[in-house]
């Protein structure tokens, strides 16, 4: 068993159980990975390989045909494909950036200061982690229409600024910054804004990256909800749905879109993994 198990422990561990546990890990790991491997392979399969019986998991003669077809299909559509890409990138970038900025600004006072109302505000944020967006969907629709934001980018972007999870994680992470550091800055005459921007923000880079991953994953996959109607404003996720609706004739092209969709969040996660884990370490709720 060369699985790099921590052997320095004094506690008894039987290698049989070790073997069993790691076998289970490998088994469930493949359950997680196979659908993703399958879709990646499908994206590179030529048409005849997509429809052989029995179906194969791996591609034999890889081709880029599906990606080429995707752009071909999309070129003939009413809205150019690049527009869907632009919409998704724009919504993701604006929503994520705004969320990181506003959630950090709000997290700093909650994490490092005691003031009137701070406890109540944080409790409400924690409580709101406990309900899903489905509960608020209908009133949100009415609020959007009252604001005149129907069928605009901001109907998707602005609510994303104020998701509770980001503020929560950011606050937990900021609490670990030593008070002495902030006091030193204060003695040097820095205002609260300056302390926040020049002392705290550079220190919480891992937390930014975590918020970046979580928000980006959410917004990248958004279909615009019930707010966006016009074809010009629709997102990649919506376009993907349309292509998949095309049925088996478009199976390869559908897989190609899926690969494009999943690559961006996964690559971002790979690049920021270690920092993300560092933030999550402080994610806990105290009793």
């Amino acid at each position, binding site marked *: 068993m060369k699985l790099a198990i921590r052997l320095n*422990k004094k*506690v*008894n*561990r039987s290698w049989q159980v070790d073997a069993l546990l790691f076998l289970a*890990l490998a088994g469930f*790991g493949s359950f*997680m990975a196979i*659908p*993703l491997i399958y*879709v990646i392979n499908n994206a590179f399969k030529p048409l005849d390989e997509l429809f052989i019986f*029995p*179906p194969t998991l791996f591609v034999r003669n890889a081709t880029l045909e599906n990606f080429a077809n995707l752009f071909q299909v999309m070129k003939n559509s009413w809205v150019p494909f690049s527009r869907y890409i632009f919409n998704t990138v724009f919504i993701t970038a604006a929503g994520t950036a705004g969320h990181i900025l*506003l*959630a950090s*600004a*709000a997290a700093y*006072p909650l994490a490092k*200061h005691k003031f009137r109302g701070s406890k109540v505000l944080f409790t409400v*944020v924690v*409580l*709101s982690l*406990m*309900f*899903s967006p*489905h*509960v*608020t*969907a*209908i*009133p949100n629709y*009415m*609020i959007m229409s009252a604001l005149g934001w129907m069928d605009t980018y901001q109907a998707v972007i*602005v*609510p994303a*600024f104020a998701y*509770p*999870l980001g503020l929560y994680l950011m606050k937990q992470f900021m609490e670990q910054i030593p008070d002495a550091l902030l006091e030193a800055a204060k003695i040097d005459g820095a*205002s609260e*804004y300056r302390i926040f921007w020049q002392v705290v923000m550079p220190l919480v880079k891992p937390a930014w990256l975590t918020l970046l991953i*979580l928000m980006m*994953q959410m917004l990248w*996959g958004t279909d615009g909800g*019930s707010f966006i109607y016009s074809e010009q404003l629709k997102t990649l*996720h919506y376009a*993907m749905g349309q292509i*998949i609706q095309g049925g088996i004739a478009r199976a390869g092209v559908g*897989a190609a879109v899926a690969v494009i*969709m*999943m690559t961006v*969040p*996964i690559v971002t996660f*790979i690049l920021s993994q270690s920092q993300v*884990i560092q933030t*999550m*370490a402080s*994610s*806990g*709720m*105290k*009793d």
Partner: protein
Amino acid sequence: MRNYWALFGKDVRRDKHLYILLAPYMVLFLLFTVLPVVISIIFSFTHFNMLEMPRWIGWENYSKLLWNDDVFLIGVKNTLIFSVVTGPVSYIACFLFAWLINELNPKLRAFMTLIFFAPSISGNVFFIWQIIFSSDSYGIINGFLMQLGVIYEPIQWLQDPRYMLGIIMLVQLWLSLGTSFLAFIAGLQTVDKTLYEAGAVDGVKNRWQELWFITLPSMRPQLMFGAVIQITASLAVADVAMALAGFPSVQYGAHTIVTHLVDYGTIRFEMGYASAIATVLFVMMLGSNLIVQKLLKRVGE
């Protein structure tokens, strides 16, 4: 009393910079999260169809929902089956995999974290399961079973109420190793290593005792956080159900509270009734969170 308000005003003036930092987030948070919940609760006592003014009808929506709406009860039943199965299973799976991964060396650990986390961040790629469970012989499961000779005709996996719920649970589990999984991995790395040595001296015999008496209690804050995220997600199952089994699903086999909400809210425009459904869901989420939080306080005792 005057004294109190004077002090209050003084404190607020002193901390005005803090309120200014907080304001943009809080305004949007109140507008798009808190206000909708309040509106939803208020509308749940009215008859409202978006065209006429809302009309106050008291508890009528709730009594209709709980006593006269058989489809809602199917939705509740399915939602409970989902959350009782996928909720705890995914929660325990999140922890178990995090715990096993934590024993690996850093490179392998990073790789396995990615494998387990990837489905939950790859967005809407869960449609791939539609192809895997496709009802013709090109579906990978049907193709495989037919080749083995287990079945001779393709099974209509996603149209048959007997299989639907199970498949959706499977896909839901596949997707569920998300935020709480990461929180657990991270939490495990912060457990004080000297506690294990101390435990060994105090008579901890095997890894299971170590898990129960040392690891789990040290991670209680992360366990709480994970529970909130998992419970909320498992009670809100809908997207996967609608994408895989269709909407409405055959014989309402994959109907949940949220799909019922979508039905009344975005198709029939009975906003008062839909708000009552949302309120019931909200109460269920809050209630089960509070119960689970109470239970988790006992871990390691």
